């Protein structure tokens, strides 16, 4: 844990009117790991993501990414620094083809049409959407849209990808496909930060898990440790009767 810090979230606070969505949360990530974040609905997980990628600004605290303070940077600059993300509600650019969706990401590092086109093709092949490259994003199935979100983020050549519930609504086969994809990309050195409700997925992909509840980090550790932690169980299922 003493290696150079990759992502450090230091006492992050986000207040909304009458609500503290994220309450002095601190954690750090290492390059190359897959970190999962779990917690009941409304725990502040997506807010935490939005604070890291800049869709929301911090009320207090600091975020350091690869040695640079990023909490003041606008979201597009953070994306240029290497932060890719998906959205909980997938945001496909519906009037564009799948390939064009990915090209929008690929244009970040490829100025020309042909380069962006090639890059998009290889990313689409990576996520298993190459057969659907010319389909409009609006025509894709839920599973395809989720993979398209990942593809658009991947095309940015990011250092870290934040996945916000990419498994939600997928069937078992599709979940396995996405797990395979994450592991394959991770093996090539890409770092993942994952919000996930499916605990099987959490166990399968991540070494380390953090747990949020009411905006507070209530546990951190390996998947097994965290999932047997009484505080975590209480947050999820409530108090044990009797």
């Amino acid at each position, binding site marked *: 844990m003493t290696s150079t810090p990759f992502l450090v979230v230091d006492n992050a606070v986000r207040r909304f009117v009458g609500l503290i969505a994220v309450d002095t949360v601190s954690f750090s990530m290492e390059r190359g790991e897959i970190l999962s974040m779990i917690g009941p609905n409304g725990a502040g997980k997506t807010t935490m993501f939005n604070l890291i990628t800049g869709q929301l600004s911090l009320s207090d605290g600091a975020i350091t990414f690869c040695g640079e303070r990023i909490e003041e940077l606008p979201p*597009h600059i953070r*994306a240029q620094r290497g932060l890719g993300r998906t959205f909980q509600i997938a945001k496909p650019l519906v009037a564009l083809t799948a390939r*064009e969706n990915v090209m929008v990401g690929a244009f970040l590092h490829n100025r020309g049409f042909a380069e962006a086109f090639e890059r998009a093709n290889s990313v689409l092949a990576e996520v298993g959407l190459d057969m659907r490259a010319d389909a409009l994003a609006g025509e894709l199935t839920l599973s395809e849209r989720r993979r398209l979100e990942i593809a658009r983020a991947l095309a940015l050549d990011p250092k870290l990808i934040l996945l916000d519930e990419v498994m939600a609504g997928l069937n078992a086969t599709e979940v396995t496909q996405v797990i395979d994809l994450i592991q394959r990309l991770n093996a090539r050195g890409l770092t993942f930060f994952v919000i996930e409700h499916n605990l099987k997925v959490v166990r399968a992909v991540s070494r380390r898990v953090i747990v949020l509840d009411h905006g507070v980090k209530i546990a951190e550790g390996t998947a097994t440790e965290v999932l047997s932690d009484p505080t975590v169980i209480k947050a999820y299922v409530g108090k044990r009767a009797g």
Partner: protein
Amino acid sequence: MTTNAAPLAEADNARTRPTTLLSLVARYAGLLMLAFVPLIVMWNDPYWINILAYAYLFAALAGAWNVIGGFGGQFSLGHGVFFAIGAYTVARFYLDLGVTPWLAVFPAAALATVAAVLISWPTFRLRGPFFAIATMAINEVCFALANYTERMTGGPRGILIPFRAGFSNMIFAERWKYALLTFGFMCIVVLITVLLRRSRLGHYLLAIREDEDASRAAGIDVLKVKLVGMAVSAALTGIGGGIFAMYVRVLDPPTLFTLPDIGVKFALISLIGGIGTIMGPVVGALLIVPVENFLRGTIGGEIPGGHLIVLGIVFVCASLFLKRGIVGAFTEILHRIRNRTRP
């Protein structure tokens, strides 16, 4: 069945290579040749050639609007301002400084761009209908200002450009030459749109239209891209205004700022033809401009303003049933046919 079934791989191989720019340009050149046919047929008919010259010019202007209104999704109703700036600039350069309109369109484009950035910077904070209303209001403010700034615009009396035929004056005795000029301008706008559609800027504008948050997450500086798109759009609109000035040679504020005739019409032509498509503005203008003229002559002759009622109904129907315009509906049919051949 799963989407990544292997047997289809062979059939789809051809599509993984991008269409070359040359073949793309050739395709649109072919379509533009079709639009050229009426000019050949009617070159000696002064009534129709006049309508045609207007249609080409408004195709180009709607195409210019389409850059930010269609691709960028920023529904501006204030393009009359850039149009008027272009017209006044060319007129003033030509009358006061003796600069040929062929060169005066460049300062016209530049000034329209400056105005576009000044107007857009604050208004791009507004979204959807609020942006449209704000730009419409700016158009009306400029309309009023044009009436007062008499030294620049000639006030309500306007500017009269004397008829001195000659190529360097961009004034022609034969009407078909105007039609040829506006056709050429339309081709330039279409070519720019084709290049834009393939470019990074074009993809970014489309992404912003579809989803601003997703665009930011893809590393796009949303405000900057919108401003650049607006600048391109305004520059082309300014040039169009300059050509219009030398065509009508009478420039008064109502001619340049009346919303249904200018600012809103750019949007409506794009809407009918196919908003955000390359050929939409061309198709829309070649349809709307003659139909409007026909209606003005027939119904408008019987009941004053009657043609506007019919036109209004056409627009309402188009926005209800042809959401992506004629070109949009056409490509959708093509898309369906192409997809039917696949399992």
